[in-house]
């Protein structure tokens, strides 16, 4: 009994050490961001705190504009995903139509090959549509999401048929049934999907990098990559401040709604 207790304490200690190790890079970024640059590698507890790095970062690069772009692009993507995936999931879950199974297996393809890898042709498409360097161009390749269709279809299938039948008897049409029965009963899935989608698109980089080339469209990740690139010679304290600023909205909401985040990712992963 004594040894097992000792063992459990040892495990707790190890878990803590790994936790500190895992948190260290971020804590370090906080240290660098809130202290004058000369303290970047000198861990002197008496070092003065300062916000100068944040002010400097904010004035060096158009962060406000990057934030607006990111919010617009993320909001547009997630809301259009909700609409398109809800309609498609409803079709797959509740109707039997000719070609349904074939259509479903064709959607499956997107779980293997995502728009991230198809950027060459998608760039040509955007050029042809005259959409290069616009916010819709960042968003459009992602709005039909196989992942979203699967997730919602799975959930719609679990809604008791009797509920839909009752609504039908009362004279509700297909869209009313969808909006009054299926969607309200799937709130938690929408929350999960929304959180995953927002954090995914907030962090997305490669496609936005390719398709944007001006301040008025660039999302924060692309802006940050320009800001932080060593060629710009910005010192580390300021890069840290800029980096923390750009992750702040996501980081704060994660720390506030940790449980929802973790559960959402879990739920989204296990289909």
């Amino acid at each position, binding site marked *: 009994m004594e040894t*097992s207790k000792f*063992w459990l304490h040892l495990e707790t200690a*190890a*878990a*803590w050490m*790994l936790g500190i190790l*895992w948190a260290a890079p*971020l804590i*370090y*970024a906080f240290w660098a961001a809130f202290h004058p640059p000369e303290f*970047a*590698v000198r861990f002197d507890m008496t070092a003065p705190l300062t916000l100068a790095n944040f002010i400097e970062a904010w004035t060096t690069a158009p962060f406000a504009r990057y934030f607006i772009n990111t919010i617009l692009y993320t909001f547009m993507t997630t809301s259009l995903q909700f609409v*398109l995936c809800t*309609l*498609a999931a*409803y*079709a*797959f879950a509740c*109707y039997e*139509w000719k070609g349904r199974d074939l*259509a479903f297996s064709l959607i499956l*393809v997107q*779980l*293997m*090959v*995502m*728009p991230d*890898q*198809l*950027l*060459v*042709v998608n*760039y040509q*498409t955007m050029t042809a549509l005259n959409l290069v360097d616009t916010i819709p161009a960042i968003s*459009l*390749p992602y709005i039909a999401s196989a992942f979203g269709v699967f997730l919602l279809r799975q959930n719609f299938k679990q809604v008791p048929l009797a509920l839909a039948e009752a609504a039908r008897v009362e004279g509700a049409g*297909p869209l009313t049934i969808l909006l009054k029965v299926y969607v309200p009963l799937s709130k938690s899935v929408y929350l999960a999907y929304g959180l995953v989608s927002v954090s995914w698109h*907030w*962090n997305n*980089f*490669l496609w936005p*990098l390719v398709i944007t080339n001006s301040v008025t469209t660039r999302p*924060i990740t692309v802006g*940050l*990559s320009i800001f*932080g*690139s060593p060629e710009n010679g910005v010192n*580390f304290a300021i890069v840290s401040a*800029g*980096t923390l600023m750009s992750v702040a909205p996501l*980081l704060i909401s*994660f*720390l506030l709604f*940790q449980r929802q*985040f*973790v559960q959402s*990712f*879990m739920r989204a*992963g*296990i289909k």
Partner: protein
Amino acid sequence: MNPKIARHVYGWLLFTPAAIFFILFTHYPIVWSFFLSFFSNPRGSRAAVFVGLQNYAYLIEDPIFWQALKNNLIYAFGTIPVTISLAMLMAVWVNRRMTGRAFVRAAYFTPTILPMIAIANIWLFFYTPGVGLFDNILKSLGVSGRNWLGNPDTALACLMVIAVWKDAGFFMIFYLAALQGIPKDVVEAGKIEGAGRFYFFRRVTFPLLMPTTVFVVFNALINTFRIIDHIFILTKGGPDNATELLLYYLFQTAFEFWDTAYAAVLTVVIMTILMGLALAQFKVLERRTHYQ
């Protein structure tokens, strides 16, 4: 409307909006990439011409492609076992009662929600020669530092460390979900039998986590063809192509060298690998169903 026809009409009407975007940005690009890969690049007024397998012949002769493929394999097989072992360990630790569990779990998971670009910015400073954090720590230990990212022997490893740090907490949550799904009576039975913690893990928990492990392994493999953002900040594929991964090479070919035909070939290669992976996952899951 005749209800027999209605379901077909409704089905298609509901599916059409999504279908348009699926076709435009997933299916058409897949087909068109194949098509483009058999043509030359249009130059000036000269239109693209059919060149058969010429672009593929170039691929076979291209040492950078082979280097990138090799790097992708090293990257995948170097990171995945470490990430998975850590993820399992984290999940087992966080799944039990302990002081400060919330902090520890948040610490493990936080890197997951940060953008790779932000992470690379932070780690860049750790790796900077001379003034960077690692070199400073080494200096205080009396060891001379090195150019971590500038040396072909260490550059890829530097990227791999970051990948492990970012992904372990993400995969932890899938193991956590699986652990919570293990029936209580199995755990109780183990306790009554007096099974030690390690023995129990090896003989009961680990096999029960197998389906999760399969899921995680394939996800991690796919990720190596998706997340290459840190390369942009840290190494840009160098030094001497030591950190060239396939998707990054595709990006360079398409948007730095503007060689669309060859980029199409690389797209086809990546698609083929991803479809092969999906097929393999399907086969493995089929064979492993008895675990569930």
